[in-house]
């Protein structure tokens, strides 16, 4: 019984992860500019990969294998926001302005510092 419950929960997690990956693909195709696309692209990892890995951790045969999955999750959680932050910041500094924006606080901060 517990075994079956474990399978159900694990596959549920994986299905949620696949859903997140699918939405991230749709977002990358449909969103208008760089920043919203970065936002959608990161969902493939923070939503998709993490849920799939969590499902794998539940399914794993031994606790050592589960610990490896958890370690991978932790490293994804550290590196993914880091890299998307660096990409977005580099885009802004390169001169790509976000579309459809009504307040640009980061731009104001930079121009205040220059003066």
């Amino acid at each position, binding site marked *: 019984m517990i075994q079956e419950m474990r399978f159900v929960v694990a596959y549920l997690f994986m299905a949620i992860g696949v859903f997140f990956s699918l939405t991230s693909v749709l977002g990358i195709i449909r969103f208008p500019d760089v920043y919203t696309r970065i936002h959608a692209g990161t969902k493939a990892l923070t939503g998709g990969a993490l849920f799939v890995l969590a499902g794998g951790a539940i399914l794993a045969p031994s606790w050592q294998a589960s610990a490896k999955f958890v370690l991978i999750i932790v490293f994804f959680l550290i590196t993914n926001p880091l890299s998307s932050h*660096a990409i977005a910041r580099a885009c802004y500094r390169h001169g790509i302005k976000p579309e459809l924006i009504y307040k640009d606080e980061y731009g104001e901060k930079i121009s205040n510092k220059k003066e």
Partner: protein
Amino acid sequence: MGLLLLCLGIGWWLWKGVAAMEDPEFIIGPAAYYIINTAEETGAANIVAAILFDYRGIDTLGEASVIYTTVCGVAMLFSKSKYKRSSAGLSFIARRGVSFLVPFLLLYGSTIILMGHMTPGGGFQGGAVFATVTILLCIVFGSSFEMSRIKPKTKETIESLGGLFFVFLGGVGLLAGAGFLANTAAGFPRGQVGNFLSAGAIPLLNIAVGMKVGAGLSTIFYSMVRVLELEFGEQMSEVEGNDKN
């Protein structure tokens, strides 16, 4: 629609190929020989490592010298004595995160190199991870930081030492009268298959190749980024002023 059918067709084809591998009838020729005899002859659990560093050791030496030649060429082409070192890096978040990650990356790289005879990996892959660490430091903290930590001269020394170590291990085989780069025939202990200390000279050759590839790739990147900073140095120093947020 046609594209979807094409994708499905190729996927089915690949799946048939993978499924056929489980059938022992499809393993013929040298592949069958390696699968049957590798563990006994070399003591390496990783067949790819055994082929790379034992059966085809001289080819691997050739590959390593290709990298060596590339490094020499790139370093010579881009050698300019006067250049502006940059301390412009990325934001505080990126700096903090990378400085947290670097020790783990180093651990990962050395694991790939040292376990190369048992698990997937080896000198080339682990060396690439080590080179990635120096490239990350160079991008995130600026090249002057990277240069102050690991001097270009040190990298060149490590690379040359790696190459020399490889050739020296081959020479041991010659001294034992078993031929260049001989492994167990030259008296290297075979050990128990799957143990950390096994497979004779293969772990040592992995370390040599790791030193060469790591230092070599990082030297290539460094020489190229130097030229970039010569051209865009002024822009970078402009950004540097307001880069501490």
